[in-house]
């Protein structure tokens, strides 16, 4: 196995900060804005973005956790059938929701996440923020905020490690030989 | 036509004969038993039984042949085919046919049919009461005339003690045994043994005392009128205990158990396999151990099959509504030989319970290997391992809880009345 570092600890922090700035800029402030992280790592990224926005704007955005298992189109092909809780403690109606995920590839996760949120109400708009866009889309969805892009080969895997779950912060490309 | 069985280990539990001997059969009789006989005359079939055992043919005091009336379950033809495959040369068939064997005409029918189609000897058992209703005595004398060798209302007990008393007394006229199915029907509203397994399965259950109460009643009645009594398919520790105690004071008690009661327990019912549904039900481990001990200490005199064949649809239903019974003729010998393999009984002790004791109960001149006696005998090997396959049963009843089980000991040849009635395809020699 060979690995290549896409983002180190510092780079990851800079990227999250940039996304936070872009969100504020694009929405001309933070009014009626909320963050929903897709389990597992999207949740931690969303939380970091929320902290950064709080630093900049002094406002704590409503924050939710989304488990998309029930909405997946490959639910019966999963290695583990574990379903975790979706916890969105605010009313999504008329909100601008920033959906946060770690890696975007096919777009299927995003599709499932959008469906899951739509079943909770009628948000004004949903935007998508991802740390890494690795291309190879299968559905017509695209991120509004992408930390960085990397066009990966089929034998490559983009791995996001976050200290909250993986004890360190980095994004690497792992190539199986 | 003559048969010479050479080089086999010949055992005769009655005389104690045991040795590598040749047996010469001429016509229907055993002519000679000696070392190294040669086949004199031209028309002699020689069977090389080297490495095998030659024993008297097995006698079953308790089987259901279902004919007349339930020919889709079994016929006299298929039932006796199953019998000879299993090593039986004589079987007694119970009266719960349709019509019930409670009259001379039904007895005549069974005997005539068995003579023309039967692969082995068939001795009908007549009903004690008309239509097995437990109300009035059947015409026992006429049936004896026609050929019954015992009477029984098997399937249920004679509930009315007064009627049973009269049957016990009346049977003395003919010197035939009363075979008693022991079950208190008010305590028997169930399908499995009442114990830990029934607690787990939630199936309605029958306590062991349902049998024991009637065992004690029947013994008490028989002793009072000084009649012989035979208690069939004994299944519980309490019954064995009651019989052992009673035999000390009163000698005219005999009893039998069946291979399933010393081979498996009520644990087998936990998967709801309807082939484990039998009456009396498969009992607890303690009961099974007591049955084995009862066989060892001769409280139990006879091993019977209670062969109860059923067609698939009687068993392919929910446990509650499935028919009771196990198709037993084709597994009885191997299951019984386990007692020898386990060191519970010697081969001679086991064969006494399968040959001479049942012969004595039914008053039959069979169950022996002796010059001058009728040639009803088997060649078997106690070591051959085989897997029970219900689909290869000759019996129409494929209802066995032993399907797929590895058993040790196999019947190879059955000779009835001097003729080969069954030869196992694997037998060479």
């Amino acid at each position, binding site marked *: 196995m060979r690995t290549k570092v896409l983002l180190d600890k510092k780079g990851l922090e800079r990227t999250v900060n940039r996304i936070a700035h872009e969100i504020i800029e694009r929405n001309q402030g933070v009014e009626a804005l909320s963050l929903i992280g897709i389990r597992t790592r999207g949740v931690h990224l969303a939380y970091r973005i929320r902290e950064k926005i709080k630093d900049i704007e002094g406002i704590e955005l409503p924050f939710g956790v989304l488990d998309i298992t029930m909405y997946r189109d490959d639910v019966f092909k999963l290695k*583990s*059938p*574990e379903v975790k809780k979706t916890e969105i403690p605010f009313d999504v109606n008329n909100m601008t929701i920033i959906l946060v995920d770690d890696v975007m590839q096919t777009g299927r996760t995003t599709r499932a996440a959008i469906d899951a949120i739509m079943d909770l109400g009628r948000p004004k708009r949903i935007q998508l923020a991802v740390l890494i866009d690795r291309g190879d889309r299968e559905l017509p969805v695209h991120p509004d905020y992408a930390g960085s892009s990397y066009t990966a080969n089929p034998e490559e895997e983009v791995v996001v490690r976050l200290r909250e779950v993986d004890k360190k912060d980095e994004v690497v490309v792992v190539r199986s030989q | 036509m003559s048969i010479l069985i050479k080089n086999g280990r010949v055992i005769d539990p009655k005389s104690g004969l045991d040795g590598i001997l040749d047996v010469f059969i001429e016509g229907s009789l055993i002519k000679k038993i000696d070392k190294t006989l040669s086949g004199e005359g031209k028309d002699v079939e020689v069977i090389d039984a080297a490495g095998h055992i030659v024993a008297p043919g097995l006698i079953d005091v308790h089987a259901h042949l279902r004919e007349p009336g339930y020919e889709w379950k079994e016929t006299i033809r298929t039932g006796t085919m199953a019998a000879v495959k299993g090593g039986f040369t004589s079987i007694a068939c119970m009266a719960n046919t349709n019509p019930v064997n409670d009259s001379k005409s039904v007895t005549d029918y069974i005997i005539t049919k068995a003579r023309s189609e039967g692969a082995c000897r068939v001795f009908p058992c007549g009903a004690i009461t008309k239509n097995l209703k437990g109300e009035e005595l059947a015409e026992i004398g006429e049936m004896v005339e026609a050929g019954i060798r015992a009477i029984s209302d098997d399937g249920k007990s004679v509930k009315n003690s007064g009627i049973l008393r009269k049957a016990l007394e009346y049977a003395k006229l003919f010197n035939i045994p009363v075979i008693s199915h022991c079950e208190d029907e008010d305590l028997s509203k169930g399908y499995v043994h009442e114990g830990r397994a*029934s607690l787990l399965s*939630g199936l309605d259950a029958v306590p062991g005392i349902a049998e024991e109460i009637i065992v004690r009643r029947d013994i008490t009645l028989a002793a009072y009128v000084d009649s012989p009594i035979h208690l069939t398919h004994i299944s519980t520790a309490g019954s064995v205990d009651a019989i052992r105690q009673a035999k000390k004071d009163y000698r005219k008690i005999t009893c039998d158990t069946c291979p399933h009661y010393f081979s498996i327990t009520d644990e087998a019912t936990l*998967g709801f396999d309807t082939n484990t549904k039998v009456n009396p039900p498969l009992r607890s481990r303690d009961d099974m151990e007591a049955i084995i001990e009862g066989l060892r200490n001769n409280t139990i005199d006879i091993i019977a099959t209670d062969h109860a064949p059923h067609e698939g649809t009687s068993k392919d239903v*929910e446990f509650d509504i499935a028919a009771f019974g196990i198709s037993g003729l084709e597994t009885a010998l191997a299951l019984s030989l386990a007692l020898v393999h386990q060191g519970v009984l010697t081969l001679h002790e086991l064969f006494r319970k399968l040959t001479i004791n049942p012969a004595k109960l039914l008053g039959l001149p069979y169950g022996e290997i002796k010059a001058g006696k009728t040639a009803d005998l088997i060649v078997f090997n106690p070591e051959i391992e085989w897997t029970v396959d219900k689909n290869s049963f000759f019996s129409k009843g494929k209802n066995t809880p032993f399907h797929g089980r590895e058993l040790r000991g196999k019947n190879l040849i059955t000779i009835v009345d001097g003729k080969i009635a069954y030869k196992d395809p694997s037998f060479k020699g």
Partner: protein
Amino acid sequence: MKWTKKDLLGITGLSKEEILFILDTAESFRDISRRDVKKVPTLRGKTVITLFYEPSTRTRTSFEIAAKRLSADTINIAASTSSYVKGETLKDTAKTLEAMKPDVTIIRHSMPGAPHMLAKIVESSVVNGGDGAHEHPTQALLDLFTMREKKGTLDGLKIAIIGDIIHSRVARSNIFALRHFDTEIICCGPPTMLPPHLEDLGVKPEHSLEKAIRNADVIMTLRIQKERGGVAYIPSIKEYSTMFGLRKEHLSKAKKDVIVMHPGPMNRGIEIMDDVADGTSSVILDQVENGVAVRMAVLYLLLGREA
């Protein structure tokens, strides 16, 4: 954790981990019933058949709602036992249903082992919705879910089950499930209604209601199973009610925060009085709500099993 079982025929056969996995999965599914849009697409295109040989409103409805909230198609077959005795055997019914390619069949039957028989015949998943006096696994799972929800844990709980234990599949399944945890289980009823060998299952038999519920965390009352001949085991319903009916004054003997459960349908005024059934200790309606979540979890896991 992975799920490998095709069928849920009983609590027997489930490990402690599997029981907890179902309960944990149910936690996630419960929230769906509390939303405006009470539906997720998880089982879209799957077909669930309920085959009920015994009348039941709540269990069948609970399964049906569970299936529908997961977007499965449901078909209800009420097979009356009388016509079934005359006509089609369970085996034939099973084969007929199998030909219609359901993904899950939920069966309720008055005879123990009927679901096991069905499971041997069909390739689809089978869920035991109650078989005679044998098992009612989803009821026990929802009961454990409710106990855990209210008490935080199952370990250390003292549970008194009151009533017609011998005929109760609910009691059996609960006992089988609770045995996996550090619980004290007491079964209380007249001696005729307590089956022999209960002690072998680690259950304490008790004939006094007051003793049974002393210091109890959970009291579960059961109804007399009239359809299983339960009435013949007691002199009269009135006498039973006097001796074993749960009244408000009894609750003072139990722990302060005792919860009262009943699998339903209740016979008010017989095994449970109004002031208990409708009182603050009662979690009977929570059981009903949790039943849907647990059944959603069961359907989801059986269909999501490892091939």
